Each structure stands twice: as C-alpha cells, then as structure tokens.
C-alpha cells in the first residue's frame, strides 16, 4: 500500500518535470527562503493530517465546521510562522528536524523511510547545486511528498486535484519570486491550502476513518490525550512545536476570509495618513519609503531626498531640526511595528498584479 502510493505519487512529479525545469535556476538562489517556507507548509499539512486522523476516529468523520475552524487557525499559524521567520536560523533548523520526524512517522515501513530520505537528499542537492533534474525544484519535491502522504487516505480521483493544487502552489511560488518579497506568498499559499482541504472534503467525503488512523499510528500517538481536536495543536500540548505561535495572537491579524478586499482597504486607509508621493521630489513613494520615518515630527520623504538632505545641512524639511543619526534603532522598532501592515500591503500587491 505504502509503496504503491509512492509510485503513484512519483508519476505527477515526473510529468511536471519540464514545467519545473525552468524554475530550477531560481530555486537555487532563494533556496534558503524556500526551505523555510517548505517547512512551514509541510508542518502545517502534517499537523492537519494528524489531527484529522484523531478527530475522525472519534467523531466518525463528522463536523465540517470544525474543519473550517481548523483551516482558519492554521492559516493564522502559517502567517505567523512566516512573519517570525527572519528571527533566526536556529528556529528554522528546529522546525525542520521536527517536521522530518513527523514525516517519517506516518508509515513505519522501511521502504517509505528510505524513499523519504532519498527525496530529502534530492532536494538537498537542489538547494546547493541545483543540478538535479529528477526532482527539479524544491516546490516540486514538497508537492510530491505531500501527495505521497495524502494519497494514502484518498483514492485516485483525488490525485487529479492534488496535481492541480501542486500546479497552483508552483505558480504561487513563481509569482512570489517575482515580487521578491519574503512575506508575499503567505496569504496566497494559504488560499491554496484552504482550497485543497475543502476540495478533499468535498470530493472524498467518506474518507475511512480507520484507514487514516492505521496509517497514522505515530501521528495519533503524538497527540496523546486530545479528545476532539479542533486545533491543529492545542496550546498546552507538550509536543507542540515551539515555533508555532499562540492562537490568541492570530485573531489580531486584520485579514480573514475576505483577505484580498480587506487587505486592500487597510492599505487604502493607511494611505490617507501616508503621502503617496514624496513632498520634496514628487516621485511616488515605494514600500520602503512609506515605512521610512526619519524624524519624530512625522515628516515623510523618500530615501533619495533624505540622503540628499543628509549630504547637505541634514535638517528635516518638516520641522527644520537636525536629523538624528540613529537609523538602525529606528529601523528595527519600525520593522516590528509595521510587520502586520507589510503583510497587508503585500496582499494588495498580489491582488493588483
């Protein structure tokens, strides 16, 4: 069963190879970024699968609203995880390790273990050299892994959906690379994830509960005392990864289901207080400029004009006071404050493009 599913899973990967081939060059460049996002995505999937196993075992597959809630929560988690991503590499590594263990756990057979290891090696080569053609892009690798895992509980009809979803994910990755921003892809990919899970629920309403639990023995064990798990991870769970944020935090995010529209409106509101063009040179302010507040008086200007003024007399045009030369401190506090808004902005950027 397990090896069958792996063979099945490898078919779409092979078929999608030419498409992924062009992306290989870029995969190398943003390998580190992608690795992190991969981890986030994989972790999310795994926790969802696990949770589904335990829940369906107890509930008998009922409770679609519970599924919806879970999806919402996980979306928030992904957002949060991506948001805190720049904090450090240690966290990334930790996340990766735990994910890897989780990935091994669903099937105890040695075949799947080695295959997963091989896949891991393949993608590793991609990250460093980018020369492997069998598993040409890291996102492809990820998709195949999710597929091989998820396919265990679905039937072959589901596979088509997964293929479409994999394409969507790849497209999202591409778009995100074009935007060249680390946070941009969070909402879009979330959308895909939500889409995937709902599709799966719709097309495969009676997933045999015992089937999932059979193939997910360790996954069930990892959440030992969870009775009816609505959340992917309960906040007080001992095995909950440290990198996951608190659930209470997620609801402070301004975007939910109507994310695109609300993100746009948030940006619209914000633009009332921030000028859209530099008052000095009248050029449009970009995102860096709008988050640049060089003077406590609140006078905003573009980085070019600011530099020009610093070379000159160094006084703020708004209050005529001398600019203070502590840009590093100012930048960090500002970054922390604008994190949410930056996500909203990237949202609107995606919807515009």
């Amino acid at each position, binding site marked *: 069963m397990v090896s069958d599913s792996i063979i099945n899973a490898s078919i779409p990967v092979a078929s999608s190879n030419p498409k992924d081939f062009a992306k290989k060059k870029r995969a190398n460049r943003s390998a580190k970024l992608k690795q992190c996002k991969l981890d986030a995505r994989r972790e999310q999937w795994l926790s969802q699968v696990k949770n589904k196993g335990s829940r369906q075992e107890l509930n008998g597959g009922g409770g679609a609203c519970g599924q919806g809630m879970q999806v919402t929560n996980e979306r928030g988690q992904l957002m949060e995880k991506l948001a805190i991503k720049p904090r450090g590499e240690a966290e990334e590594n930790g996340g990766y390790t735990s994910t890897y263990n989780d990935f091994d756990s669903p099937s105890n057979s040695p075949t799947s273990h080695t295959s997963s290891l091989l896949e891991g090696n393949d993608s590793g080569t991609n990250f460093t050299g980018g020369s492997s053609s069998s598993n040409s892009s890291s996102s492809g690798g990820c998709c195949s892994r999710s597929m091989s895992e998820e396919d265990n509980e679905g039937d072959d009809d589901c596979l088509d959906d997964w293929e479409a979803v994999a394409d969507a994910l790849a497209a999202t990755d591409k778009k995100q690379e074009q935007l060249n921003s680390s946070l941009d892809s969070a909402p879009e990919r979330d959308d895909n994830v939500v889409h995937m899970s709902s599709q799966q629920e719709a097309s495969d309403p009676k997933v045999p509960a015992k089937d999932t639990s059979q193939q997910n023995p360790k996954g069930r064990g990892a959440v030992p005392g969870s009775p009816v798990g609505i959340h992917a991870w309960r906040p007080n769970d001992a095995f909950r990864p440290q990198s996951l944020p608190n659930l209470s935090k997620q609801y402070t995010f301004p975007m939910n289901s109507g994310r695109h529209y609300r993100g746009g409106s948030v940006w619209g509101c914000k633009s009332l207080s921030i000028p859209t063009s530099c008052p000095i*040179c*009248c050029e449009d302010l970009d995102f860096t400029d709008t988050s640049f507040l060089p003077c406590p008086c609140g006078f905003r200007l573009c980085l070019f004009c600011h530099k020009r*003024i610093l070379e000159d007399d160094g006084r703020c045009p*708004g209050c*005529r006071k001398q600019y203070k030369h502590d840009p590093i401190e100012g930048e960090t506090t500002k970054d922390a404050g604008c994190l949410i808004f930056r996500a909203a902005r990237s949202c609107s950027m995606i919807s515009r493009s």
Partner: protein
Amino acid sequence: MATMNSGNNSNTPATAQVAMPSQKQTVSTAKTVDTQSVLKRLQSELMALMMSGDSGISAFPEEDNIFCWKGTISGSKDTVFEGTEYKLSLSFPADYPFKPPKVKFETGCFHPNVDVYGNICLDILQDKWSSAYDVRTILISIQSLLGEPNISSPLNTQAAALWCNQEEYRKMVEKLYKPSV
C-alpha cells in the same frame, strides 16, 4: 626594470585620462536626473497651485522656461496694502527645492523688508528655507509679510520709520504704487 618603470609611467596618465571623462559623464547624468526631478516638482507645484484656488496669489511659468515664474500677490484686506497688486519673479535654482528660489518684486513696493530693487528680506527665502516649502507657501508668506513687516531689520528704513503711522503709510503706498500693465 627601466622598461617596467616606463610602462608604469605611461600607464598612469592613460588611466587618469580614462578616468576623467567617466567622472564627467556621471556628473552630467546626475545633473540630468536632478533637472528631471526639479521639472517634476515644479510641474506638480504648478498643478497644485492652480487647483488650490487661493485668493490673492497666483503664479505661472514664463514662456518656455519652467525655472522662471511670474507671480502676483494682492494686498490683504484690512492692511495698508489693500487693493494693491504686486508682480514678482521667481527664479528656481537647479538644486531646487533643496535651495530656495530667488524671489523679487517686479512692481515697486513700499515696504520695510523690500528694498528699492525689489529684493525681499524674508527668513524662509534665506536661512529658514525648507525643501517642504513651495511656490504657494512662498507667495502666502510674502502676502502675510506685507501686512506684518519685520521692523527690526529693515531694508527700507523710511518705510520702517513710517510703519507706526498707518494712515500716512497708506498714503505713501498709494502715492508710490505703480501697477505694471
């Protein structure tokens, strides 16, 4: 050894000659970029000024030179300059708005802070200039300067001395006012 030295000697001036034009090129490109940004700024200022609909002030570029504007301000109500209108010339430097424009009265103005040549003594046109100012704020500032002169540092001492007698001052303004056609 000698050949090496000669080679070095011949190389040094060559590189210097190569370096010189490249420096000139970068300077010229920087200037074109600057000029374009000044153009953009002045164009948007003109647009803003025409859209604002401020009463008593107006300005427009001279023919085919956006760096030279002609402006008009009218004396505010309830001041000795009420009913008068003054023409000004504004000349923008290439590093505008980082440097202030040169503003002069074209119409003769009997005012403590305006000399007989039309030069204006106004702090924001000199050391208190800020790149956040624009033509509109300059003209509004000059308009308010008409009614509230700075007597302590006059360019026109006669006007400064007469300012305390507003009735006499009004007569003097009317007498000296020669509206340009």
